[in-house]
């Protein structure tokens, strides 16, 4: 069902690359839970986004059934890179000057979490 490319090496590459990608996603998820402040969480997130998805795409390319599929996979990755890059840039800028004010809002919204302490 997967196509003509059922060669052993291709399968092995898929196994390896997808598990590596999964690892990055896991790391990103742990990071976004555990890191102490907004900007370091942003760092964790972009690693997961760019590398994790990229490795999964790379792994799946070896299972593709034709060039159109490969092209689509790569396009998806490029778009994800673009979106992640741009939006983390924008989010970081939102978070930077507004950190104090947003924190204030949060406290008013009754979330007096310790996590809001800023480490600059």
């Amino acid at each position, binding site marked *: 069902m997967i196509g003509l490319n059922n060669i052993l090496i291709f399968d092995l590459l898929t196994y390896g690359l*997808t598990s590596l990608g999964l690892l990055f996603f896991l790391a990103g998820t742990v990071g*976004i839970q555990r890191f102490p402040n907004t900007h370091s969480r942003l760092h964790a997130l972009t690693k997961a986004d760019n590398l994790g998805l990229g490795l999964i795409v790379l792994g*799946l390319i070896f*299972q593709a059934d034709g060039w159109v599929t490969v092209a689509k996979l790569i396009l998806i990755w490029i778009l994800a890179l673009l979106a992640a890059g741009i*939006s983390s840039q924008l989010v970081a800028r939102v978070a930077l000057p507004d950190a104090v004010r947003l924190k204030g809002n949060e406290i008013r919204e009754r979330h007096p979490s310790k996590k809001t302490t800023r480490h600059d």
Partner: protein
Amino acid sequence: MTTWLMGISVALLLCLGAALWRVWRGPTDADRLMAAQLVGTGAVGVTLPLAAVTDWGALDMALVLVLLAGFVAVVFVKYVRFRASNNQGDNR
């Protein structure tokens, strides 16, 4: 291979569920945006192996998802800025 790829999908789905916790938790809007973005990318990551075990048709959905993810991120940021500027403006 099918089972392996489905397994990857399941694992990514679990990651995605963990990111949801950060969306709930915050504490800042920026954190929520980021976590939502991780959910978006994670969803693409879930969809790709799913596409691989069927006939790759789901790839189009991943494409739409990733296009819209960037768009939604921009809208979020615009919104947060809009609100922040309004809050400033209304301060007497």
